């Protein structure tokens, strides 16, 4: 059976089972631990306790202490031992408890994991998936809210993947674990439990009310490097990923704007074909991310769209981002690129 056919069969067999993103990630890990004896899961608090966000709950009990275990509080060590495990032939899935904590592991990621295949001319590879919750909107202050994805997209040899729904999280994570290159898998923690409209003062809508929470029980994959068209439209193209997909969607719904929204899902390798096709169709492009603005991934997207679609553009490419400040605790909603900032950018881009 082909991959697509098996996916389709799995979808049909499990109609209407609704789970949140945490459960979807847990299922992906469980499935891969079951399918592949070389997969191991490790990180701070991921073992007996099951992770501070519960993504690894029950996995140690089911798969044993040598497959799912706690680690010392050392991101350098976690990534470093994962490189060695990959060289042995394992397929480690380390968790970094918050993306903000990943910096002590950067040398092992940038100079080691990302370069091993190249520098050893394929003698050694680092097939690891580094999972980490990222993004703000949970009153996490400056050390539990950051979106450092552009640090990793700048590194040759790393893939960067960011899901925005339970369905995507499961299928993308399985693809990442099976991938033979090191992958940074950033989980938007604001939407672990439900999609986010951008209005922090409104009640959280649970995933169960969203169709993307219908997740097949079994194994399926979503290929890396393929964007998802969230909605088709003619007025402008919005490029987003993670939490901001939902915020952008809710703003368009509210304003009645016929936007085409692309959820990029994979930043490297990027689905440039989907981006080009959409922008050439609409002639207008808005890029939305939560990360700080300067040298953010939006700068790369803006440059690519300008280089490739310039003669189709009817207005300058716009970026809506977080501000170039640390993520402030009490003022996080002033930092967050919410409906007002996005709405203003849409108005500007449609007026031009």
């Amino acid at each position, binding site marked *: 059976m082909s991959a697509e056919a098996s996916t389709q069969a799995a979808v049909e067999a499990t109609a209407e089972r609704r789970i949140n993103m945490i459960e979807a990630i847990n299922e992906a890990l469980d499935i891969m631990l079951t399918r592949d004896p070389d997969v191991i899961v490790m990180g701070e608090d991921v073992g007996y306790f099951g992770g501070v966000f519960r993504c690894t709950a029950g996995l140690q009990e089911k798969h044993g202490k040598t497959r799912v275990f706690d680690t010392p509080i050392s991101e350098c060590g976690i990534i470093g031992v994962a490189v*060695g495990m990959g060289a042995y032939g394992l397929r480690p899935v380390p968790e970094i408890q918050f993306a903000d904590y990943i910096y002590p592991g950067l040398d092992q990621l940038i100079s080691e994991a990302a370069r091993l295949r*190249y520098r*050893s001319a394929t003698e*050694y590879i680092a097939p690891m998936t580094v999972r980490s919750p990222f993004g703000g909107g949970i009153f996490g202050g400056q050390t539990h809210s950051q979106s450092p994805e552009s640090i990793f997209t700048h590194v040759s040899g790393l893939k960067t993947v960011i899901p925005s729904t339970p369905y995507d999280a499961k299928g993308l994570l399985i693809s990442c674990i099976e991938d033979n290159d090191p992958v940074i898998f950033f989980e938007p923690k604001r939407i672990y439990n439900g999609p986010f409209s951008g209005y922090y003062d409104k009640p959280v809508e649970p995933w169960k009310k969203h169709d993307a929470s219908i997740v097949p029980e079994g194994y399926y994959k979503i290929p890396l490097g393929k964007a998802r068209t969230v909605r088709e439209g003619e007025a402008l193209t919005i490029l987003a990923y993670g939490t901001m997909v939902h915020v952008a969607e809710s703003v368009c719904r509210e304003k009645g704007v016929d936007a085409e929204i692309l959820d990029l899902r994979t930043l490297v390798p990027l689905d440039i074909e989907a981006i080009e096709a959409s922008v050439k169709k609409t002639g207008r492009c808005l890029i939305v991310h939560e990360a700080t603005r300067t040298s953010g991934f939006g700068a790369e997207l803006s440059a690519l769209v300008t280089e490739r679609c310039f003669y189709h553009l009817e207005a300058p490419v716009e970026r809506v981002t977080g501000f170039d400040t640390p993520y402030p605790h009490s003022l996080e909603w002033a930092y967050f690129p919410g409906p007002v900032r996005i709405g203003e950018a849409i108005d500007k881009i449609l007026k031009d």
Partner: protein
Amino acid sequence: MADPASTTPPSGDNRPALALHVPEPRSRPGDPVDFSDVDIGEAGAQPRPDEGAKPDEMKDLAYGLIRVLGEDDKAHGPWDPKLDPETLRTMLGHMALVRAFDERMFRGQRQGKTSFYMKCTGEEATSVAASMALASDDMVFPSYRQQGILIARGYPLIEMINQIYSNKGDKLKGRQLPIMYSSREHSFFSISGNLATQTPQAVGWAMASAIKGDSRIAATWVGEGSTAEGDFHSACTFATVYNAPVILNVINNQWAISSFSGFAGAERTTFAARALGYGLAGLRVDGNDALACYAAQAWAANRARANKGPTLIEYFTYRAEGHSTSDDPSGYRSAQEREEWPLGDPIMRLKKHLIAIGEWDEERHAAMDLECAERVKATTKEAEKNGILGHGLHHPFHTMFEDVFEELPWHLKEQAQQATRERQIKWPDHHPMDEAGK
């Protein structure tokens, strides 16, 4: 600068002024050299505990110096590995070949055949003898001065030279700085060039081997200067937490480029003593004594193989030459150090031992040296047929874009086409415009 003790502190109060200590080595260029404060102890004096000993039961071994070869060139004490003469001659032969290889490659760099080289003169025992105590499929994660491991494991010299020349025969496709070898076939991990990163990787490999119930162990080598890196601390922590079957070898050659070992903490304690704080077994070994190097590594390997725990071994040695071809040590240390250094030369010491036990002589030694030199020379000529650095016989340009990822993504395909176009513009006769370049 004013004496801090006699000045009023900026705080304005009457508490004593603080003073910063900046370490200073024993001698600078032109200074007389005195190693009399270095206590090398007696060969054979150190006890050899059971391989299952608890670290705190053997802590004196982290402060003393395990030595086997005495002033009389005989082997002494419980650490004598009692190797047969044939093995000792093999060990000597590997060390002599390493030195001959280093001499030739260093000259090759000076002749412009490559960009860079690093000798391990005086430190041959720490890689050759130590790795001979491991099984050939035990995984090693070396730093950049362990060419002795490759030679001891029988890695072809021509592969080493091809790599050093970055030529078309280089298995690493000319991507790595010279001497940053890799050989999976010889259980030799890809050398990074970033310091101490290999140490947690070795621990991870050992953890993986233990997870799988395998019997192979891992060993890593790191310079004493690089133990200051956080990676080394992570390695020690993970090693002890998971009781990983790993050996952490610290080569204390006393110099990290121009910074002496005091900048890694050597003024206060030994590097082996770091083991004790982690609950690792710690051994401090005469790194110029090939028998002691072998014995310590064998002890640690037995310990790891029996699930008794990891070991940190400090090899006390001396970097007899510059850090690399890019370094001139006469600018920062006394040339006398090499002469006065009390632990001698590892090759001479093993040679004298073999002669002392009637298993070697000067004639055979001279013949061996000549044979090593001839072999390296002949292999160098052979390797030069594949090209030398900067003379065109490198891997094809498109290989630059391969292996960044398992598959070539669109952006690298585009950049590869650009690189092809650039060559066609620069050398239109040699690179006719093909489809890829248009």
